């Protein structure tokens, strides 16, 4: 094993008739499994989960688990497109406030024009996709790093959220739309819950898993998935072999816009009103969930299932500290230590797995 010279790039076995020609398939099943991006975070998530099962007896009930999963899902739904974008080599700092932009748009449009709330929901989707498209277009056109472009959008949206809300409603929060037509229907889609064996399960958990399944399929089984890996790995050689780089990048940003819209709608329909100053700082949590989930900040590597565990870990730590009844003064510090620890486990697993 130690004699091999070539790094273990995950290329399917060469076309030779013999599968065991000394270059591939030498590594054990366990090691090959460990080399997958989501395995490290999976082990980290299991560790955190077991830790809190022992430390916080209150976690052991089904309803507590539903709360943890709900918290995870509101992070996880956004972490998915954020992860895909990261695999594609870019990231989006505006995703946190974009959520609020979407919710504000839907709320104010339906309220001010006294329309069925579904109208607001649809227009908000268009707005969110447009913000994503703008980010992508701006980045591709100018060649500026996505950090700069989306930092600009982040600040613009933050200001627009505040100023436009104040201008239109004369308040900094939107009006209650819960009595309007279509609200109950929309609430069913975005913010309802259902009963499983006496436990109230939030519908966002279902959406989260559905989106994760779709994202995994797209990433591993479609041409578009290959393009994502290609543009994230090496943009120039991807373009040279005919991958539509511009199209891929812009649609990835639009996908983040879709996620922002979905979570924005969830917030609107579960809380009835939106405060225009919310959402700041959330973008870092989405990015953290994706990175903990095994996506590299440099792009070209990662999975869609990894961020699912990353978001779960976030939700588990955040709620677990409360379930354990620890001194709340230490809350943020606990969170940081647990996350750093989990990320280190993740890193160690990946190193062990890829070392030969």
């Amino acid at each position, binding site marked *: 094993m130690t004699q091999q010279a070539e790094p273990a790039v995950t290329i399917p076995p060469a076309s030779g008739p013999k599968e065991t020609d000394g270059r591939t398939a030498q590594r054990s099943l366990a090691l090959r499994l460990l080399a997958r991006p989501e395995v490290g975070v999976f082990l980290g998530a299991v560790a955190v989960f077991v830790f809190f099962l022992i430390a916080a007896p*209150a976690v052991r009930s089904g309803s507590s688990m539903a709360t943890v999963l709900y918290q995870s899902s509101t992070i996880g739904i956004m972490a998915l497109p954020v992860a895909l974008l990261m695999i594609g080599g870019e990231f989006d700092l505006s995703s946190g406030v974009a959520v609020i932009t979407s919710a504000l748009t839907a709320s104010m449009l339906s309220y*001010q024009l006294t329309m069925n709330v579904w*109208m607001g929901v649809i*227009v908000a989707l268009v707005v969110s996709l447009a913000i994503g498209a703008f980010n992508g277009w701006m980045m591709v056109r100018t060649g500026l790093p996505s950090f700069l472009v989306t930092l600009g959008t982040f600040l613009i949206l933050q200001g627009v959220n505040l100023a436009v809300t104040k201008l239109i409603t004369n*308040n900094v929060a939107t009006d209650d739309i819960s009595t309007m037509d279509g609200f109950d229907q929309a609430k069913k889609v975005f913010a309802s819950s259902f009963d499983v064996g006496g436990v109230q399960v939030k519908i966002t958990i279902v959406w989260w898993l559905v989106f994760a399944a779709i994202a995994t399929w797209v990433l591993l089984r479609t041409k578009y998935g290959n393009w994502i890996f290609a543009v994230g790995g090496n943009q120039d050689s991807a373009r040279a072999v005919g991958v539509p780089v511009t199209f891929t990048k812009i649609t990835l940003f639009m996908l983040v816009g879709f996620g922002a819209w979905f979570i924005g709608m969830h917030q609107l329909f579960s809380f009835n009103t939106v*405060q225009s100053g919310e959402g700041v700082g959330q973008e870092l949590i989405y990015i953290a969930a994706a990175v903990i989930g095994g996506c590299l900040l440099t792009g070209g590597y990662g999975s869609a299932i990894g961020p699912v565990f990353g978001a779960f870990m976030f939700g588990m730590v955040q709620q677990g500290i*409360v379930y354990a*009844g620890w001194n709340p003064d230490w809350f943020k510090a606990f969170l940081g230590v647990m996350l750093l620890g989990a990320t280190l486990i993740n890193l160690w697993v990946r190193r062990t797995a890829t070392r030969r």
Partner: protein
Amino acid sequence: MDRTLHPRSRRIAPLVAMAAASALLVAGCSSSSGGKKSEESGDSASAGKANTPRMTVALVTHQSPGDTFWDIVRKGAEAAAAKDNIKLVYSADPNAGSQANLVQNAIDQKVDGIAITLAKPDALKDVVSKAKAAGIPVVGLNSGVSDWKKLGLLQFFGQDETVAGEGLGNKLNSLGAKNAVCVIQEQGNIGLTQRCDGVKKTFSGKVENLYVNGTDMPSVKSTITAKLKQNSSIDHVITLGAPIALTATQSVSDAGSKAKVATFDLNKDLTGAISKGTVEFAVDQQPYLQGYLAVDSLWLYKTNGNYSGGGEQPILTGPAFVDKSNVDAVAKFAAKGTR
């Protein structure tokens, strides 16, 4: 490049179609209930206008962007400014150093008076003495009830947060509460911590603090839910802001808990929750009054040499309790976003 641009131009067509379709739908898709149409047009609280010479007053607060509470303070200040023939210059920054810079900015503009909040008094000490050296009167509002005199401010309008907390603690005692949790939505904010400390001082039952991330409502909701499940003996959830209180009511029902929700501060949706009974009561510090009095007092000082509170005592704007018995009287003002 060429082939990558084509799919984009083709995608514009459906977008245009969608926009057109939604424009068409606007007409047929109006809501029969709620919305702007049902909002009553209340009369505003503007009085006549003073004929004193035009002056400029700066209001510099530590507001973080998009906070409903500060919006009400600002509206009060604007109402007083309109009445007193004052040009109001509003600026805010939660970062204490930046707030000091904004005060310096007001001094540079040679304003006729400055109203400031003292969330972090030490950071503002120097700039306040600079203002005094420049002959500009400075008044305090909202935060800094224990520091305004030390810094040499003319007068102060606000609520003693500890006193307000003590009031809430007493109220809980009279309601027979045993076990409460105090939800802090911004870690490290002195005023918020003082409120919970005040509750702790007078409340005869048990109270513990819980930190939540105030910028992420789903997280606030699930954290409070988790706390209620971890400790099922909690019978009161105390929140320190109106939007947090409304979210806490959802956590209570999610957790299947019997806990009641009580809160500091008020807004339009919260008055509705109080009349429905989902929120038990609110401690109101009347932010509109704080903004209004701070600006109006500068006008009185400039035009008539008056000191509110004699320059010795703070003018307390709270705590005032709003519960089911008096919510109706408050609700119509809250609906306009001024109470």
